[in-house]
């Protein structure tokens, strides 16, 4: 439904997000990613219904730094818990119960552990969404006529515009040559 002749003149008038093609299996997608990189396209993104094994290596993506966020959040949770227990029990309202010390690490362990886990979990989830730039309710790739298949059973590959002299028509041709179907140039 989207032939090059319909889209290319329009695409030249507005800034392009990039060229997007559809593939019907993870293997073909990975092959096309490698092919596009060989042709010198560096800004690639894929849209897949499930995490495709080996795609990070194919895209040359670095490892996610999320682990450090989670570690930091967990330590912050533990510190917050110890501070809470110490301050409420020994400073703000020092009450001796059964002759026990006002503060001790031993009885603080359960709450410290739980708050460390709680903060770490928020760190993992919030950090993941922030790294991903979500929530973001709109993205140019949604304009691709077959995008809804990317959350069902198809695998989209986008060659994104990376400079002012990015030529969407050439990128689209490259995707077609790599076996992509429904190649479309998507506006920014």
């Amino acid at each position, binding site marked *: 439904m989207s032939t090059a002749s319909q889209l290319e003149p329009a695409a030249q008038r507005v800034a392009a997000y990039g060229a997007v093609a559809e593939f*019907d*299996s*993870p*293997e073909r997608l990975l092959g096309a990613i490698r092919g596009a990189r060989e042709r010198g396209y560096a800004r690639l*993104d*894929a*849209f*897949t*219904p*499930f*995490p*495709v*094994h080996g*795609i*990070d290596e194919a895209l040359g*993506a670095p490892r*996610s730094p*999320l*682990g450090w966020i989670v570690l930091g959040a*967990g330590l912050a949770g533990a510190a917050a818990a110890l501070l*809470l227990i110490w301050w*409420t*029990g020994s400073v703000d*309202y020092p*009450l001796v*119960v*059964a002759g*026990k010390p006002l503060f001790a690490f031993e*009885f*603080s362990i*359960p*709450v410290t*552990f*739980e*708050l460390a*886990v*709680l903060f*770490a*979990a928020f760190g*993992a*989830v919030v*950090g*993941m*969404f922030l*790294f*991903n730039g*979500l*929530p*973001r*309710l*709109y*993205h140019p*790739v*949604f304009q691709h006529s077959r*995008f*809804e298949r*990317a*959350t*069902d*059973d198809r695998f989209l590959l986008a060659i994104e515009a990376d400079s002012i002299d990015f030529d969407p028509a050439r990128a689209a041709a490259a995707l077609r040559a790599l076996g992509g179907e429904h190649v479309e140039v998507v506006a920014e």
Partner: protein
Amino acid sequence: MADLAISQELNPALVLGEPAYSDVTRKVAGIVEGRMPRAWYIAIACTGSLTLVLGAMLAYLAFTGIGVWGNNSPVGWAWDITNFVFWIGIGHAGTLISAILFLFRQRWRTSINRFAEAMTLFAVACAGIFPLFHTGRPWRAIYWLFPVPNPALHIWQNFRSPLIWDVFAVSTYATVSLLFWFTGLVPDLATLRDRAKTRGRKIVFGLLSLGWRGSARHWRHYELAYLLLAGISTPLVLSVHTIVSFDFAVSVIPGWHTTIFPPYFVAGAIFSGFAMVVTLMVIARQIFDLKQFVTMKHLENMNKVMMATGMIVGFAYATEFFIAWYSGNQYERFVFLNRAFGPYWWAYWTMVSCNVFIPQLFWFKRVRTSIPAMFVISILINVGMWFERFVIIVTSLHRDFLPSSWGYFRPTPIDMLTLAGSFGLFLTLFLLFVRFLPMISMTEVKGMIAADGAHPGD
């Protein structure tokens, strides 16, 4: 050929019929998008009515006082705390399946994790009601349960008490389970958004999916986030029932003051949780025709987990008795003899029969793979596990150190209707879940199909 047949006998496929990716979407999303079967409407009419009963009982309690329940000196904790521990325990299977089996790369968790995680959330919601209403004034409870500045009294919680540890454990557990569940749901919500036909569904699922687009950049962070959540949920799930058991073990009551409680409670929680997953899954896979994704292999594995944890629980019962004798402590000895042969002998032997004897039937493959048998056994296990908590709590309290203060706990009709009502709430939430959200993770099932190398184009 023969080798292949043997390997399939030993290691049957986890998804039957080699579906294409789009078949998974169509089947699972189709349940949410289509009309519910008549059985669903009948079920929610019943469970919704029971939920109203729960609301009425709790309102009656709030307006009257906790005297409407049967607990009274010397049995200060009775059905309320029994129900609390029972529901918290039910939740544990969800986290075990979603986190621990994920770390152990147990692929059979894939089709059942969403279902079990939802069960966790609803069970914890039911659990929370009981201690909250046991305070008598739930609208004031925020000052008692959480370290919220109290303008009237200006006091803080005693952090040496296991009861406050429990508040932190259970609320952290509920929150982290919700985060884990929602994170798993986001890619599936995006699928529902992209399939939505009506404007309302587009807006609702568009907002809920947070603009997820399945980008390779998304998945890179997502997969690590999921792994990290599994890693932190694993010690969390073990800690929750450990800390619940501290409510008892840190006290000095004979029958409660034992170091075996944490592992024994955790095993019991997993035992009852799996039983509840099987009870509900057997019904759901029948009604929604999910046999392709929830195979006999899944059910059989869950039955094996029940058999193993049931024996751990049985071993704990035996150890408690042995230690009661071996410790030479006469109070300890009395409590255990009183448990098995005292006025609550019927509760004790119900517990032992349901939890220790009946699961032994799972040694037989024919029982393990029979739907009616596992359905009945899983219900009996939960009866047994409810009685376990009742036995631990009530038999340890009802005969105090002083024979002059001995008593016998009897539940009131309010107790019984509140428990029945909590089942209504649990099942109602569950029915709404299967109606509005995909009960099987489409993303994970597709990933598993892809990993199996079966190449399903269309």
